């Protein structure tokens, strides 16, 4: 089969794929209105008809795998079912058609929705305040660090230039700290997969502004000493931030706000099922206690006597972190989702997420042992090291071979501290049959690795392409389509 064409390789000059609204005002030449020297040549966009447009994207979708196609057990990503009712509520004209700067009296429903979501998320995470302004998890981290910075600054505590981050942390943590002007110090993990308290106490000092901690951590393990950790940081004068990417293990069961954290972010696009959409948009809602509340971003959706408004009278705020009010239509989806569970059902999310992950860990235990042998939370981190030792087959190969078995691969090589890491997060919405299918496939591949290692290393065989040459991609960059040059004539 030949290459699937780019949209630029389709169509013909003069074609158009949409019926542009016809204006009915006088048809003055545009150059008269904006001056000829400001007028451009039309941008070289595609020229295809409407049917071709539909076909192009339909066929590209058929070359893409989503949760709707099968299990998607990417660890740290919480690829759970994205309920379709959420798409319906988010498409309501009364939400989709509202302008962000129209008068507040005409947007009471939208602001109220934000207030209700703030209240619910604050309650779930154990905080007293929340804001939906950050567009994603990393933005939420960064915002919390800014609030911490403002807090120290206001107290005149200006020598604090360091943020502590566990060595198992997600890359956004150190990157957010850096973007907030902090330098980063890494904290080691102990033999049980928890933060090493000795290492922590060595790193703590008067230069520490705070610590970022994921809990459950990125090894899928609950930080058993969380009380000590937050106490130690506080004693050293630092603040504690919880990376809430793993909140799916805790909803309705336990609350970071109760554990000594000063603030946290939630990934609504993970725990609260707003779809990932191929990489976004997300919503990195943040929560905090009263001590950090003055520094939250402005404006803040607020209720007073049944009236809803966007409070911009926040003198100590770090300021604005989004053009408007955050990824609002994602907030609509998240509220729809969380109300489908309510206080009566929400704990089931965590309960069955944890059950599923432990079931995977148990089923794979002998072939892919857990990095730390204890009950995991919503995801398990296993190692392919024994298999590699025995057969030379790496977890990357295992992942690629999984594609041929009709499953999306797990996360590999994260966290960085585990050799041949396989991070599997089934989520609570996968049924037993799908999880068994995944486990059966992984065990079958381990067998194949013994008998036909080269075959496994050549996988996948059934996808629309084979393994990609990523080195060439980075070396000879081709990042956009360019009009083919006509051959020169001499």
């Amino acid at each position, binding site marked *: 089969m030949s290459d699937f064409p780019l949209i630029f390789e389709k169509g013909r000059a003069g074609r158009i794929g949409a019926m542009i609204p016809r204006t009915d005002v006088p048809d003055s030449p545009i150059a008269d209105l904006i001056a000829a020297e400001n007028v451009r040549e039309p941008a070289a966009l595609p020229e295809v008809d409407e049917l071709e447009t539909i076909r192009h994207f339909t066929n590209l979708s058929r070359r893409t795998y989503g949760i709707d196609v099968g299990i998607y057990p990417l660890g740290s990503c919480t690829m759970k079912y*994205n309920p379709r009712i959420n798409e319906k509520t988010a498409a309501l004209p009364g939400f989709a058609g509202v302008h962000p700067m129209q008068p507040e009296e005409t947007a009471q429903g939208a602001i109220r929705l934000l207030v209700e979501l703030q*209240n619910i998320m604050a309650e779930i995470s154990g905080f007293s305040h929340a804001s939906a302004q950050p567009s994603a998890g990393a933005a939420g981290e960064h915002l919390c660090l800014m609030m911490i910075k403002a807090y120290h600054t206001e107290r005149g505590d200006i020598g604090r230039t360091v943020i502590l981050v566990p060595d198992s942390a997600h890359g956004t943590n150190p990157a957010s700290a850096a973007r907030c002007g902090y330098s980063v110090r890494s904290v080691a993990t102990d033999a049980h997969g928890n933060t090493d308290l000795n290492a922590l106490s060595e790193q703590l000092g008067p230069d520490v502004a705070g610590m970022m901690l994921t809990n459950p951590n990125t090894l899928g393990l609950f930080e058993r000493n969380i009380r000590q950790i937050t106490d130690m940081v506080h004693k050293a004068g630092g603040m504690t931030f919880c990376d809430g990417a793993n909140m799916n293990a805790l909803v309705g069961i336990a609350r970071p706000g109760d554990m000594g954290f000063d603030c946290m972010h939630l990934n609504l696009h993970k725990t609260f099922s707003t779809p990932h959409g191929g990489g976004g948009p997300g919503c990195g809602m943040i929560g905090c206690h009263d001590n950090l509340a003055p520094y939250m971003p402005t404006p803040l959706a607020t209720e007073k006597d049944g009236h809803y408004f966007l409070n911009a009278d926040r003198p100590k705020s770090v300021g604005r972190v989004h053009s408007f009010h955050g990824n609002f239509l994602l907030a609509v989806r998240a509220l729809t989702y969380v109300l489908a569970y309510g206080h009566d059902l929400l704990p089931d999310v965590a309960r069955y997420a944890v059950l599923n992950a432990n079931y995977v860990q148990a089923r794979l235990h002998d072939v892919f042992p857990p990095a730390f042998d204890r009950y995991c939370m919503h995801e398990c981190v296993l190692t392919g090291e024994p298999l590699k030792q025995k057969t030379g087959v790496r977890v990357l190969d295992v992942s690629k071979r999984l594609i041929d078995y009709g499953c999306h691969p797990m996360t590999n090589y994260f966290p960085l501290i585990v050799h041949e890491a396989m991070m599997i997060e089934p989520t609570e919405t996968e049924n037993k049959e799908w999880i068994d299918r995944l486990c059966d496939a992984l065990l079958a591949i381990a067998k194949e690795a013994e008998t036909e290692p080269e075959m496994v290393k050549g996988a*996948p065989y059934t996808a629309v392409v084979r393994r990609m040459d990523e080195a060439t991609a980075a070396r000879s960059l081709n990042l956009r389509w360019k009009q083919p040059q006509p051959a020169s004539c001499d």
Partner: protein
Amino acid sequence: MGYVPHTEQDRAEMLATIGADSIETLFQDIPSEFQLDRPLNIPHSLDEYGLYRYLGSLAALNEDSGKLTCFLGAGSYDHYIPASVGTALSRGEFLTSYTPYQPELSQGYLQTIYEFQSMICAIYGMDVANASMYDAATALAEAAFLAHAATDRKKVVASKGIHPHYRQVVRTMCWAGGLDYVEVGPDEAPSLDGAACFLFQYPDFFGIIRDARAWTKAAHDAGALAISCSDPIAMGALKPPGEYGVDIVVGEGQPLGSPMGFGGPCLGLFTVKEKFVRRIPGRVVGITKDMDGKRGFVMTLRTREQDIRREKATSNICTNQALIALAATVYMTAVGKTGLRQVSEGCIRNAHYLADRLTHIPGLRLKYPDEKFAFEFVLELPKPAAAIRDVLMQKGILAGLPLDEHYSGMDNCLLVCATEVRTKEEMDRYAEALREVSA
């Protein structure tokens, strides 16, 4: 139930395999002091029908663009969205996939990103686009940080002709990241000594087509980067910043096929000239081949990114606005070369017609009569703009943005926008209403 599929039997079988006697056992690592001993204080669950009813009741509390005739722009626009956009976005494979870390299973999505990058470059006249940023505001902030990294300077100079919200965001981010943020008047010749960059909006917040060439030259003369924030629809007709030598062009992509949505999701567009390619923040997709020599797409230049470079990454961004970028890709495909121009011209024609109608009303005039504008303009009224706006709202007209909140001394000024979907009849009705109110 919610969306949890497990039956009693499933649970029993799975616990048996695990060797645990209850799900509670699995939570044993959580100290009991932290285990909630009460139900959360949130509402009771609703069934699907109830959810739709409840969310519908909230939506009904808003006035939306179906009920109001919208002349409000200011960074969020009421444009035509082809039905094909919704068709593509509703494809479950797109909607429910993750960032394409496994290229073999995401060739379709990766290709759309490559196409997106190509189209955005074409629109801005630039060399390289990334796969998206959160919104125009954070894209502008990222651009400032790029300039800081590229020039090793700390001073960020921004024109007040930039959307006030964007400036607030840039100010916040600069403060946190240790950059010095300074503003200059919207029509000022900026003094850029020692500046890392000059940020401006083109056309600016007032719709005015500023001299991007002159500002770019000024920036370059001072060794600073020229950074423009530009509406992509305006670029259908206007010379793109790339042609004026601007180093980084960012913008808000909502007008390309996404609804206003009370301001989100947005779509941060981010493009640079070739020489900055390895400094670009966020994800970038490139073409390569598979082991059989077949063309394929992968995320590339990964070593700039936080998951590899951690605190040394060019940015902390991870999740971006992929699906909104997809909407923009479908939009740009559907309207295409001819259509983007038509949309752009439609906006400009409508806005000029409206400006003409309104300025024929006694007592009303353009605030900047000597400037060329695209499809927004500042109208000076005989009374405070907010009051007039409120009266027109009663007639179902969203008249524009009163500028007093955002610019001192502009009490009677209203920022008015007309896009391509406004009809002559709607604009005439607006003029009529305004005539009555300002009489």
